């Protein structure tokens, strides 16, 4: 390791499934057998080295990152590079056209080889893809460390003028909330709309990294508080995050763009972009056009912000904090991982999935002067994390209700074993914010 220099490397890898026809590319129930890969699924890695310390940030076109996948990637990259595993942060973009599963019975009947041998092929394809994700994540991290170059880093904030992510919860006059995606919710007779159930994101937060002596960045990592999913689609795709990365890369030569999801639990991109009502081919065309439009809109907001004069710095040290609960008994406890990596006045914050946007604001309010880059879906075994008021108001995110007693945190899985419930516990989001503020302040 080279002391006294701020070194950064970047790399990318392809995690598209090799046998998409056997897989279902989303966690939600699907209507059609998979057609194939619409645009490649990718992972990207950003490796840092300064003051004799190393760190690595990994982003990827994954609906979620399995805790076991995160554990294996951290362990293998740490062994090969000497990087402290607690400084390896993983983050999924939460595209739904990813993370293949074995198709359900109805879809299996429509697949190329129905029956037991088809089931076996599908199960093998899922296992092969899971292995591929881990292997490619590891190799991408190693390649990023192999590409280290003397660099400087700057924080970027890009205001978003046009509609992109919007609060997807709608408040009704009785005080409850319903979701307003697609054709939307039931709005019962006699009730009227109040307004959105909470705030919407107004900016992209990012870092720009350039080689010393060069004018243009070679890597950017953006974080935006929104789901990027548009509709159910029988194709694998990076969805809007993939489109945004491609749009940014097409405007800045030799750039690798990374995308992380921030505090996005109650934010969506399809409230005002409802899908068409026609058939599959029309839906596919709409999807492609919408992803390109929204990805272009993202780039329109983002690229001018990184082309302005930025306050680049070469931090001589990095500090970190890492907090993990549950992984000592992974079969009976929910795994919750929090991480902070301070690089100059920038703090990369590793978060569990689906925190409501208000918690992002609370974090920033608690840490004035820090540029926070939120990276969620980090391999924690978590679910929606609403605010206390949102939990009272209801909506899809609250559909599972709050957990009230320890015994309610355990549920019976389809295979008959007791597993930890994903029902949001009251106050968990507030505790996460408090913990992270202390972690950043304690290591700053």
């Amino acid at each position: 390791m080279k002391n006294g220099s701020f070194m950064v490397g970047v790399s990318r890898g392809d995690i598209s499934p090799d046998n998409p026809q056997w897989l279902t590319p989303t966690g939600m129930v699907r209507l059609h057998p998979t057609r194939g890969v619409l645009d490649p699924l990718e992972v990207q890695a950003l490796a840092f080295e300064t003051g004799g310390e190393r760190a690595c940030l990994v982003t990827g076109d994954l609906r979620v990152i399995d805790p076991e996948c995160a554990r294996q990637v951290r362990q293998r990259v740490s062994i090969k590079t000497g990087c402290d595993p607690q400084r390896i942060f993983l983050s999924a973009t939460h595209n739904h056209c990813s993370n293949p599963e074995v198709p359900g019975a109805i879809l299996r009947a429509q697949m190329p080889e129905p029956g037991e041998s088809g089931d076996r092929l599908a199960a093998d394809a899922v296992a092969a893809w899971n292995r591929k994700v881990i292997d490619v994540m590891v190799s991408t991290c190693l390649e990023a460390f192999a590409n280290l170059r003397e660099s400087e880093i700057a924080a970027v904030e890009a205001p978003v003028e046009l509609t992109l992510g919007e609060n997807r919860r709608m408040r009704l006059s009785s005080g409850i909330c319903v979701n307003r995606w697609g054709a939307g919710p039931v709005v019962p007779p006699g009730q009227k709309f109040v307004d959105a159930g909470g705030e919407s994101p107004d900016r992209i937060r990012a870092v720009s990294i350039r080689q010393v002596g060069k004018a243009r960045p070679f890597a950017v990592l953006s974080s935006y508080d929104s789901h990027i999913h548009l509709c159910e689609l029988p194709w694998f795709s990076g969805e809007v995050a993939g489109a945004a990365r491609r749009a940014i890369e097409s405007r800045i030569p030799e750039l690798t763009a990374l995308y992380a999801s921030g505090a996005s639990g109650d934010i969506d991109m399809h409230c005002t972009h409802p899908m068409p009502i026609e058939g599959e081919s029309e839906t596919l065309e709409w999807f492609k056009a919408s992803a390109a439009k929204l990805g272009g809109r993202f780039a329109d907001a983002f690229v001018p912000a990184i082309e302005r004069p930025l306050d680049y710095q070469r931090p001589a040290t990095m500090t970190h904090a890492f907090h993990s609960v549950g992984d000592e008994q992974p079969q009976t406890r929910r795994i919750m991982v929090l991480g902070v990596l301070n690089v100059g006045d920038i703090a990369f914050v590793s978060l569990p999935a689906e925190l409501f946007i208000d918690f992002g604001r609370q974090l920033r309010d608690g840490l004035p002067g820090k540029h926070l880059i939120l990276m969620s879906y980090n391999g924690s075994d978590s679910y929606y994390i609403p605010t206390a008021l949102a939990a009272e108001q209801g909506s899809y995110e609250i559909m599972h209700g709050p957990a009230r007693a320890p015994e309610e945190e355990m549920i019976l899985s389809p295979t008959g074993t007791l597993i930890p419930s994903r029902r949001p516990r009251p106050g968990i989001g507030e505790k996460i914010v408090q913990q992270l503020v202390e972690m950043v302040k304690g290591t700053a």
Partner: protein
Amino acid sequence: MAADAAFQYIVDQLTADDPIVRADAAKLLGEIKRTDAVAALAAYLEKEQCYSKVAGIYALWQIADPGAIAVLQVLIENPNVPDDWYWYGRRAVVASAAIGLAIFGDESGIPFMQDLVEKNHDMIVCWYGPTILRLSRGTNHVKPAEALREIAKSITVDTLFNTVPNSKRMIEPGLLTMTAEVLGLIGTKAAQSKLAEMFTHSSRYVRARAAVSLLEADASPENLERISGLLKSDHTDLVAIKASLALAQSFDDVRQKYTDVIARIATDTADPFDRAVAIESLGVLGAGCHTEIIVKSFEDTDAYVRQCAAEACPADPALQERIETLQQSDSAPRVRLAASKWLATFDQQDEVTR
């Protein structure tokens, strides 16, 4: 502004960019009940593909012009919204068209509803449960199809609670709030007992609706005592407003006392939603002694509070100029719409429900 011009302004807003504005316009046209809105609403329903669509259907129910039947029949076959099978939007359009047809005595949408009833589906039992129960009782003007009354009979306490313990109907506050409304309309001792249990729910919106429904079920001394107990133990403004509204509506001897409680919250609370609900409640109570609070709320910084104030404003000629100012210069289109409705209906107080 003349009533016709105000009415036309509302009709024009059916094509606004914002679906919430469009939904408000449709809702107001339903409340105004002018049959010359039917053609515009039919055009709206033909085009609309968003969550605001059902507001147009409800408006046709309220106007109750037979010209709506053909429009609703088309929606049964072709709701013309995305097939969001996982959510409710498409089914809500078909169900509300089916209910609308049943109001006109047309049973062509009944099979769709019966299918959902057999599945004990949240959509019919909870979201549309209150409407079905109310409509099935009929009024002087509405004699719904017999099949709708049969569907209403199947919505019982047992149906509501015949679900697995951790189902979303038993947990999610939105569905529980609707369940509370249904229980109030069922009104039996068993329903009242379930409502009283809801007083300890973690959501203030569930507790508030349970209080209103309990008195709707039976304004008995026992329930009066239950609500008084809730008011003492619950520290949220929302529950205080809704429980006070229910008490003021149910018992003449405490009407003024609880109207004053609501007025105090309207003035004091920092939460804009609670402020809006308090203003709305003063409007429901026709609280002339607190008109000043309503009018003062025209200047509120929160648009929804101003909208509720315009809706709650009594039909007093002395206030016309203030309403006209609101209609012409408020920054929020929904406030301008609410003021337009006031102006459009100013001369028809007996026919229009404010």
